[in-house]
C-alpha cells in the first residue's frame, strides 16, 4: 500500500467534531529527508492533522502509515516510541521543571528502568542516569541552551521556550519531527534563527513536517508544500508552484483573484 520512499503517508483521512468536518479525505506523502510544510489559513485543519498523526485524535476514517507501519489507533506515547516527535502550537513546556529536566524527560523513551528499579536506585538506573545526562548535555549544546540548563522553564523568554520544546523532542531521537507553528510569536531575528535550527535538524537526517502560518519561514526552507483549506487539500508542490497558485491566494485572501 505504502510507497517505499515516503516516511509518512496519509490516505483519505477524515475526522469530524460534532458535525463539523475538520478534515475531509486528506491524502499526502512526506518523502524521507524532506522539509515538508503544511500550510493554510486559520481553521484549515493543520493542527488537527498533526494531532491525528500523533494519536491524540484517532481518525474517523482513512489510514496513516509511518515507514510502512499503520499508525492509526496508536496512543501518542506509542507513536513517539515508533520515531515521531512533535512540538505544540500553544507551548507545552513543563513549567515546573528546569530546561535540563525538560530535555531529560525527552530521553524517557531511550531508557528502560521502571518503578521498582528506580525506587531502589539499582546500578542499571545509575548507568542510565549517566547516559541520560550525557545525551542531554549534547542536545542542549546542539540547541544552544547549555548556559540555561539549570533555569526553570517557566522563567524563560518565549523564544527559548520554543527551543526547549524542540530540544526535548530531539531527545526522543525521532526520524520524523512535526513542528506545529515553530515561528508563531517570534520576532524577525528569532524566526531567522528558527529556520537555521530547522535546517540543522534536517542535516542530522531527520525528516521535518512543518505546520506554519508564517510564509517567510515556509517559503525559505521547505522542499514541498501542501495547502489545506476547510479540511481539504487545495494544492501541493514546490514553494514556487504554491506561490503562483490562484487557489492558494484565494484561500488566504478570501476572494477570487482578478
Amino acid at each position, binding site marked *: 500500500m505504502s510507497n517505499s520512499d515516503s516516511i509518512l503517508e496519509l490516505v483519505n483521512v477524515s475526522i469530524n467534531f460534532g458535525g463539523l468536518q475538520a478534515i475531509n479525505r486528506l491524502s499526502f506523502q512526506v518523502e524521507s529527508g524532506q522539509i515538508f510544510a503544511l500550510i493554510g489559513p486559520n481553521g484549515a485543519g493543520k493542527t488537527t492533522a498533526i494531532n491525528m498523526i500523533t494519536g491524540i485524535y484517532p481518525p474517523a476514517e482513512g489510514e496513516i502509515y509511518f515507514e510502512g507501519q499503520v499508525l492509526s489507533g496508536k496512543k501518542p506515547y506509542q507513536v513517539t516510541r515508533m520515531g515521531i516527535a512533535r512540538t505544540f*502550537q*500553544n507551548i507545552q513546556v513543563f513549567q515546573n521543571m528546569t530546561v535540563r529536566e525538560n530535555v531529560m524527560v525527552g530521553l524517557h523513551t531511550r531508557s528502560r528502568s521502571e518503578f521498582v528499579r528506580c525506587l531502589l536506585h539499582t546500578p542499571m538506573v545509575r548507568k542510565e542516569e549517566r547516559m541520560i545526562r550525557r545525551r542531554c548535555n549534547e542536545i542542549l549544546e546542539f540547541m544552544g541552551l547549555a548556559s540555561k540548563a539549570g533555569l526553570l522553564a517557566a522563567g524563560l523568554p518565549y523564544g527559548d521556550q520554543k527551543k526547549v520544546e524542540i530540544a526535548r523532542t530531539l531527545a526522543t531521537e525521532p526520524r520524523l519531527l512535526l513542528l506545529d507553528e515553530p515561528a508563531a510569536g517570534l520576532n524577525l531575528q528569532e524566526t531567522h534563527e528558527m529556520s537555521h535550527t530547522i535546517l540543522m535538524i534536517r542535516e542530522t537526517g531527520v525528516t521535518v513536517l512543518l505546520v506554519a502560518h508564517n510564509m517567510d519561514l515556509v517559503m525559505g526552507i521547505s522542499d514541498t508544500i501542501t495547502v489545506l483549506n476547510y479540511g481539504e487539500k487545495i494544492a501541493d508542490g514546490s514553494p514556487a508552484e504554491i506561490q503562483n497558485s490562484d487557489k492558494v491566494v484565494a484561500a488566504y485572501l478570501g476572494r477570487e483573484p482578478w
Partner: protein
Amino acid sequence: MDFSQQIAQYIITGLSIGAIYAIVAMGFNIIHNATGIVNFAQCEFISLGGMSMYTLVVLLKIPILISFFISMATVSLIGALMERGPIRYARSKEIIILIFLTIGLSGTLRGTAQQIWGTDNVGVPAFSGEDPIHLPVGATILPQHMWVFGITFLVMLVLRHFFRNTMLGKAMRATAVNRQAAALVGVSVDHMVLLSFALSGALGAVAGMIIAPISTTSYDTGIMLGLKGFAAAILGGYGNFAGAILGGVILGVLESLGAGLLSSQYKDATAFLVLLFVLFLKPTGIMGYGESERV
C-alpha cells in the same frame, strides 16, 4: 400496606431528601462556576442557616417568615465576608490551595458555632404544622416536605431566570466561562466572585432552614448534607444547575430505595457505588460537558 404503596413511599422519601441535596448542590455550583473551586464551607452555611433559624424562631420568638429572610441575609453576609477576607487575600489562586483554605475556614466557622450554640441538637418548628398529608398513591408526607419541594423548585426558577435573563446573571456566566474575556468587556470579575459567595451562602442557609424542622439541627448538621450535596453536584455534572437537581434526586431516591429494597446498612455504600460507576462510564457527570484540552 402493599408493595406499590411501599415503593411510592420510598420514592417520595427519596425525592424529599434529594431536593435538599439538590439545593446544596446548586450552592456548590455557583461558587464553582465563578472560581473553579469546591467551597467546603458550604457545609457550614447549612448548619449556620439552621442554627440561626433556631435562634430567631425558638429563642427570640420572631415569626418564621421574617426569620427566614434574616437568616438568609446573615449567612450570605458571612459568605461575602469569607470572600472579601481570606479568599481574596490568599496569596495563591491555585485551585487546590483555595479548596483547602475553605476547609480551614469551615473548621473555624464550625468551632465558633460550637462555642455559640453548644453541641446539642435542637428542633425548629415546622413552617405549617406537622399533620401528615396522605397522597393518593398511598404514601404519606409532611407539610414541611411540601415546603422543601416548593422552595427548591422556586430557587431553581429564580436562579434560571437570574442566569438567563438578567444582566448580572449573564455577567456571572461570562465570568465563569472566561474571566479575562469577561473583564475585557467590562464585567467586574471581583464583584461577580463576591456575589457568588453571597449567593451560595444564601442557598446554603435556605437548605439548612427548610430541612431543620424535619431533621433537627446542630452546629455540625451541615457536614453530611454538604458531602451528599457535593456528590449530587458531581453526579449531575459539576457546574450544571439542571444536573444538580437531577443528581440530587437520583442520589436521594437511590438511598431511599437502597434502604427499602436492598439493605439499610449498605444504603450509603450502594449510593456511592452507583456514583462511582456513573463517573467511570461518564467521566463528567450525567449532564456535564467534557473539559476538552486544547493542544
